[in-house]
């Protein structure tokens, strides 16, 4: 049974609402601050409820996951067994490997391991079904985190902080189509702009010359400079240098960090460069004190 008024005019109402939604969407994409603050406020209000619910539903959720995620748990278990076996095999040579790794870091001048970081725990995916390539972590602005900070594991770059609430944050994974990062090819020293593809890889489709020599398996790190992320964080290895490109080169990178089965992440706390002019001004200040 439906209640409707004979004088209802759904079409004008619908058009008005669609226009309002489109306006809001455009303003949000253009980065109008009050809209983001409104959303952040809503999430901050919900936060205490979410924390309590997380704790209360933990035992029930474990049973739920066992029932509805049995296949996933089995696959995860299998993956971990394989990984454990691989690590056992590697343990024999780990000392030699670590020495080699240190030497490599010295040779290419990477400062990655010296960065100041904050360890955060992964809580899961954000609410709803719109959170592909995003994960939530258990720290926010109360812990000193800021939007745009790099997120990494020991293996390399994972993504960057996209939304920072008071005690939770959302990480945009490096595979997200909106993810952009300035990168440097360690071998050739060429720099370019890499973006997520939404399919588990990154692609450098700007900045690399058509005649640049890019090797298969070449290591790629963040370039720093005017990029929001600090320099020299390992990103991954080249799996397709696109040598035969005629007009535009698209170098495909396989991420160094495994985005599956993560539990903890490091947020790099290095100061953000909010204004691209700042580094130039800082240099001028050094040269002309």
């Amino acid at each position, binding site marked *: *049974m*439906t*209640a*409707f*008024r*004979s004088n*209802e*005019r*759904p079409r004008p*109402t*619908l058009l008005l*609402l*669609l226009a*309002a*939604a*489109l*306006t*809001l*969407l*455009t*303003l*949000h*994409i253009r980065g109008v601050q009050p*809209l*983001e603050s*409104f*959303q952040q406020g*809503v*999430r901050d209000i*919900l936060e205490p*409820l*979410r924390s309590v*619910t*997380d704790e209360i*539903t933990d035992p*029930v*959720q474990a049973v*739920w996951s066992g029932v*509805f*995620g049995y296949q*996933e748990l089995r696959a995860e278990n299998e993956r971990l067994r394989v990984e454990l076996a691989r690590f056992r095999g590697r343990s024999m040579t780990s000392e030699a490997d670590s020495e080699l790794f240190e030497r490599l870091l010295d040779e290419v001048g990477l400062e990655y391991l010296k960065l100041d970081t904050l360890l955060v725990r992964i809580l899961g995916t*954000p*609410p*709803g*079904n*719109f*959170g*592909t*390539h*995003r994960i939530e972590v258990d720290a926010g602005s109360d812990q000193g985190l800021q939007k745009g900070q790099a997120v990494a594991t020991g293996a390399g770059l994972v993504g960057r902080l*996209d939304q920072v609430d008071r005690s939770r944050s*959302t990480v945009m994974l490096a*595979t*997200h*189509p*909106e993810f952009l990062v300035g990168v440097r090819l360690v071998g050739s020293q060429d720099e370019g702009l890499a973006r*997520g*593809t*939404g*399919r588990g890889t990154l692609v450098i489709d700007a900045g690399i010359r058509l005649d640049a020599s890019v090797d298969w398996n070449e290591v790629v790190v963040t370039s720093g400079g005017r990029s929001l992320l600090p320099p020299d964080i390992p990103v991954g290895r080249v799996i397709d240098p696109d040598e035969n490109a005629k007009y535009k080169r698209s170098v495909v990178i396989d991420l160094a960090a495994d985005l599956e089965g993560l539990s903890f992440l490091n947020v790099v706390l290095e100061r953000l460069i909010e204004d691209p002019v700042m580094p130039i001004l800082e240099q001028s200040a050094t040269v002309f004190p």
Partner: protein
Amino acid sequence: MTQRLRVLLVLLTGLALEGTILDEFRVQGVAVELLLMVAILTGYHGGPERGAATAFLAGLLHDSVVGSPLGLHALVFPPVAVAVSSVERRMLRSTPLANGLALFIAISAGQGLASLVGVLFGLLGDSTEVFIRQALISGMFSVAVSVPVNRVVRWAAIGDLPGTIELRREGA
């Protein structure tokens, strides 16, 4: 309590549930689309205009809790609610099975449309299979919990009707 206040209460409760308990229980990584369901059912029970207005608010709240750009779901929910209301007005008779099927189609369509808009604005990857799977699972999962939601939304949308509102009987 006025109708608007009741709908607002239902929306805020829906927001709290969607951001807390319903987020904890997922099937294949997909959660119940409660606010979309509230929007659709308001269109079904309350007519297209109420449905559209409620759907718009539901979309804004949904955008806030899931972290999508403000306006994205508010762009998708109202047309779905109006479409459901329009179809309902043309239906000669309704059975629980037909209603369940219609709700499944509406929720899957709403979820699919939201993903499509996300892709168009460059916010999501283009793995169509994932979006189709997500839409179908969220449709089925949401229909499974729709009975109590339907009662609450019906109460909110037509609980105390003013005299000017016409009531249409089933099969009319």
